[in-house]
């Protein structure tokens, strides 16, 4: 039985986020049913427009899984992605929307455990917020 909630959109870099996601699945680690994974050639491809559109169309949270600093195949795509997330968080705050709805998550390609852990953390953060409101 799949749960519709929470809807998390994960933009995953093909160099780190995607392999980590595959790894998590192969280990059978728990992931939400409504997790939608979108592969990107680089974290830097996570444009502000994509992120906002995901939220606009009903995502509860958007996570960007990219390489650790210094590991980007395209030198600074991950740094750009992080800056965009930081910028969008300030925009969300000014809209009266919790900035935690967007998360920048650096991850190593072989670290399925860490991937699953970060997704669970986000789920819990969303849960506790739901309970509060």
């Amino acid at each position, binding site marked *: 039985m799949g749960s519709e909630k929470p809807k998390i959109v994960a933009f995953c870099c093909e160099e780190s986020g995607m392999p980590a996601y595959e790894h998590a699945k192969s280990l059978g680690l728990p992931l939400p049913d409504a997790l939608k994974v979108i592969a990107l050639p680089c974290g830097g491809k996570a444009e502000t427009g994509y992120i906002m559109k995901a939220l*606009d169309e009903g995502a509860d949270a958007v996570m960007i899984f990219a390489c650790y600093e210094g590991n980007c195949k395209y030198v600074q795509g991950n740094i750009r992605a992080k800056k965009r997330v930081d910028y969008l968080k300030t*925009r969300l705050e000014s809209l009266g*929307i919790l900035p935690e709805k967007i998360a920048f998550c650096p991850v190593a390609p072989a670290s399925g455990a860490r991937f699953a852990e970060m997704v669970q953390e986000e789920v819990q953060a969303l849960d506790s917020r739901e309970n509060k409101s």
Partner: protein
Amino acid sequence: MIIAEQKPMEEILEMLAPYKKILLAGCGACVTVCQAGGEKEVGVLASQIRLARKDAGNPIEVLEMTMTRQCEPEFMEEAEDAMKEVDAVLSIACGIGVQLMAKTFFDKPALPGLNTTFLGFPEEHGVFTERCAACGNCVLHLTGGICPIARCSKSLLNGPCGGSQDGKCEISPDVECAWQLIYDRLKALGQLENLENIIPPKKWITSRDGGPRKIVREDLRI
């Protein structure tokens, strides 16, 4: 080109409060290049507006469009159909675009989503600086290609003032002293003797000070 930046979200939302359906109109010219009002920004801002209004329990419909250029009447027809459907247009072009929308679509409010800031260029990715004050009477040939009107905090024509130190302006260490730049450039050009001449008081009549400006080119009129 014209450099602009987006208004604070609070201000935009306040402007939009009375409306249920709007057109968000970007512009494909200057504001696309300075990433304040192009197609990308239209998408992001539209999502933000919809999210905020949904969250507030007062949803709004936002049509999205990026016009070729909002500063020329011939492109206005691009928005004609959409304008029939909406209560108002939020333009994220420069002030010229907003005004042309207002003039063209006389019965619908045109709201500014940007603050039109200055004329300049990107110094590096994400950093824009002012270069021209559109004073209507160029002196760049006297000042080594560096504009003292736009770049000196006091617009001095016979600078630098006493506040120039280590190449910086007295108002802030983040502001370059235009007259230091002029000196360096004239030195490089072997034209330091330019600096000995007193530049006379400027005819500001060609600038905004002379009232709204207008150019009539009889040769171009049909």
